[in-house]
């Protein structure tokens, strides 16, 4: 434990990377455990509809509308 602590506190950069890594790991694990939906960027209103999970469908619709 002491060795890990020494390694993390070796420089400001290792500390930053470790902090960010632990933060992201916790966010991802919590997301997986709570089954948070992995949504992608989507826009939807009565004029425009875009969903980044389905780019092909967007292109097909755009070509059809031309």
């Amino acid at each position, binding site marked *: 434990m002491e060795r890990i602590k020494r390694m993390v506190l070796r420089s400001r950069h290792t500390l930053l990377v470790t902090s960010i890594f632990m933060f992201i790991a916790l966010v991802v694990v919590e997301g997986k455990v709570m089954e*948070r939906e992995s949504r992608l960027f989507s826009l939807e209103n009565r004029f425009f509809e875009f969903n980044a999970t389905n780019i092909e469908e967007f292109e097909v619709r755009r070509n059809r509308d031309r």
Partner: protein
Amino acid sequence: MNKISWNRFPVLLKREMWESKKLFIASPMVLSLLLLIVLLWVFIQIPADIKEEVISNMDALLDGASTLALVVPFMPLAIPFMIVLYFCSFIYLVNALYYDRKDGSILFWQSMPVSNLETVLSKIVTVSVVAPLITAAASGVLTLFIVLALSVLAVSFNAEALGFLTLLSAGLYSVLLVYLTAVLAALWLFPAIGWILLFSAYARSLPLLWALGGFISLLFLEDFIFGSQFLGNWLQSRAGGQNYIIFSVSDFIDRLFSYDLLIGLILGGLLVTGAAYMRRFND
């Protein structure tokens, strides 16, 4: 190194308020004064017949209404104050652990019997408990003015539902709710506070760019490498104001002990610990 002495803590808070009085004391006071002048001007400009109509409509609307119904119209008054508070808090947090490294005063502060954790915690308490108190007080001054103005109008136009004490209690309750909303917002956004403090303690220059750029890069990298968007989803789930705007004290207690807030506190705590340890590395 990272021990906390609660006896010294009020002194640290005083130091923070002394160093940031323009951000947290002058800004809400000036805003309150400006809005008072604008309201006074509007109050003088409106013709008497329109005033009478407004008061009679309010009287009819609020006749027999509960205190909560009277509180809600007062709440929007706090919106400009909350915007200023968020803006000032953001500027404060970006510079909180950066400027004392830049001007070298960190060496003086570290020679004092104050741990790095205490210093970082004093900044968090300032932004999440003390600054909202001043903001609520400043919005309270405005609320009090409106209560007085409405009471004077109500007496002059014989509106019975708009009694002074009823309006005053509703106004004061709204100020309390504004304060609790600001505190809840700070707790809800605690991971963001931790993130900004971490980069404020890390960056040798441009901490704002590091904090924003770092997060945007991570969003992009997660999507690019893993094809997932857990970080983006998580950000989206915490961004909405509906998560921390409250209309009753019980609402505050419910949200205070909600799962989402507690997990946010753990995540923020992780980043704050990183920021406290980062203070070991002086430039």
